[in-house]
């Protein structure tokens, strides 16, 4: 059976060029970068080359890049690192304050929730129906105690690209540090940390055809971060641990490739993305696009379908060889639907019927045609099974109907 991978927001395959670059660092150049001998120097030089490759892609300086194990670790280091360094400096009687958004990745949201337990105050900004943070509300939320704004560059579910340059301008004017989680946008849309006025920016390798288990954090020169991994003082003392040389080499090479191909990849994927969006929303009854029609990642198409549930849709598509993703609760370890979809104003039933298709550079137009042929059949089949399809009951009416049935059932005592 034909297999089509449309879940590149989850992870990407390692590019051949990246793998080729990495392989010698497992067997031939296996030195520890901290060693003084030639083996160590080879490893050290490889790290510095990768640092430059990443810095080039985001228009930063080499010394402003710190390697980590993942985007999640980068987010943790940025937010906790800034928080712990600044906590004692805050004189506002209301306490230290962080501003973030309701649609951040759990790596940011859970870190903020953890900091709330440590005495920090966190403002979770709402978003509009497209997923945009309201910049005016953000500005009004800044208080004397606000030391950090952490807003993602692009949303991992619905693909909306946030107005980070505008937010960065405000952060700079108000002397607040800005961190942005750019894990989804890195390598897909141009990033200029200077134009963004970003002080910290998180990236990950495996979303851009690099290996899993390696990430990086941009820290603007002069920004003070408290480390939370202590040891041998690697990465300017900010992240002790013997470096994952092959992984770092892979991240560097993936960044270099992304830089070379960023425009052509974006143009190609935008074409496929828009074909998916146009055909699905036009040809599948009661299907809708989530996120902004144009201010979105070039590879992200996110839909919702009335009357069906996302996990069933993902598994049905998998049966046809198509790998996709959903924000439905049933596919996750929690039984709550995606916080992002609820935050953009969808009700729980609408959020359950979601489907994320994320493209990669290896996807072809023929594959998209296959998806467009298969998807309507799959949706139709699931709708035939669904008691919600064709019944024009609103959510509130369903709640009342079910409550009534439950009462009726409880009233009847089985003998």
């Amino acid at each position, binding site marked *: 059976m034909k297999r089509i991978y449309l879940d590149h927001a989850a992870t990407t395959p390692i590019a051949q060029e990246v793998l080729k670059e990495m392989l010698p660092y497992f067997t031939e150049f296996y030195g520890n970068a901290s060693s003084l001998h030639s083996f160590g120097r080879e490893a050290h030089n490889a790290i510095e080359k990768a640092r430059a490759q990443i810095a080039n892609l985001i228009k930063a300086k080499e010394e402003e890049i710190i390697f980590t194990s993942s985007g999640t670790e980068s987010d943790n280091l940025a937010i906790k690192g800034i928080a712990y360094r600044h906590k004692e400096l805050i004189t506002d009687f209301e306490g230290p304050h962080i501003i973030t958004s309701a649609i951040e990745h759990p790596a940011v949201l859970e870190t903020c929730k953890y900091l709330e337990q440590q005495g920090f105050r966190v403002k979770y900004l709402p978003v509009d129906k497209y997923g945009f943070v309201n910049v005016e509300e953000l500005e009004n939320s800044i208080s004397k105690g606000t030391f950090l704004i952490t807003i993602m560059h692009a949303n991992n579910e619905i693909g909306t690209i946030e107005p980070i340059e505008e937010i960065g301008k405000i952060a700079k004017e108000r002397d607040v540090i800005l961190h942005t989680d750019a894990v989804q946008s890195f390598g897909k849309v141009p990033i200029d940390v200077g134009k963004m006025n970003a002080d910290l920016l998180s990236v990950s390798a495996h979303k851009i055809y690099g290996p899993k288990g390696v990430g990086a954090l941009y820290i603007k020169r002069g920004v003070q971060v408290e480390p939370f991994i202590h040891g041998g003082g690697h990465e300017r003392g900010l992240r002790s641990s013997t470096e994952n040389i092959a992984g770092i080499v892979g991240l560097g090479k993936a960044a270099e490739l992304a830089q070379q191909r960023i425009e052509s990849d974006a143009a190609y994927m935008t074409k496929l993305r828009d074909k998916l969006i146009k055909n699905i929303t036009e040809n599948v009854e009661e299907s809708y696009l989530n996120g902004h029609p144009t201010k979105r990642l070039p590879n992200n198409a996110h839909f919702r379908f009335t009357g*069906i549930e996302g996990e069933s849709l993902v598994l049905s598509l998998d049966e046809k060889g198509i790998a996709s993703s959903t924000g439905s609760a049933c*596919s996750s370890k929690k039984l709550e639907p995606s916080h992002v979809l609820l935050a953009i104003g969808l009700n729980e039933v609408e959020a359950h019927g979601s489907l994320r298709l994320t493209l990669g550079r290896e996807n072809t137009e023929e594959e998209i045609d296959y998806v467009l042929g298969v998807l309507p059949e799959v949706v139709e089949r699931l709708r035939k099974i669904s*008691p919600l399809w064709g019944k024009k009951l609103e959510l509130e009416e369903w709640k009342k109907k079910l409550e009534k049935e439950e009462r009726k059932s409880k009233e009847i005592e089985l003998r």
Partner: protein
Amino acid sequence: MYSEKLMEHFRNPHNMGELENPDGVGTVGNPICGDLMSIYIKVKDNKIEDIKFKTFGCAAAIATSSMITELAKGKTLEEALKITKEEIADALEGLPPIKMHCSNLAAEGLKVAIKDYLAKKGKY
């Protein structure tokens, strides 16, 4: 995550659809949580003569609905009321712990449909 048996019931659910003029209907679940089942029954001589279902939900919800219709068909009402969530899960060669509520829902749906039938017959 799911057994092959469960996936088979998800791919090809048995007794899917609605019955015309059912003797009893049970709708359970909560669309907010992502699961909603309607079980329809026809009863003859105190036995479930025909049974169908419609389900909005995940693969486990669809498969457990399909399985309960298989397990209940032809049984007396008393026998059908005794079907447990564990039996449904076992018949599907297991369910992930987080999905056990789906088999509970299927058993509950059948129970509500039988109660509906009994209430209509004035047996309460």
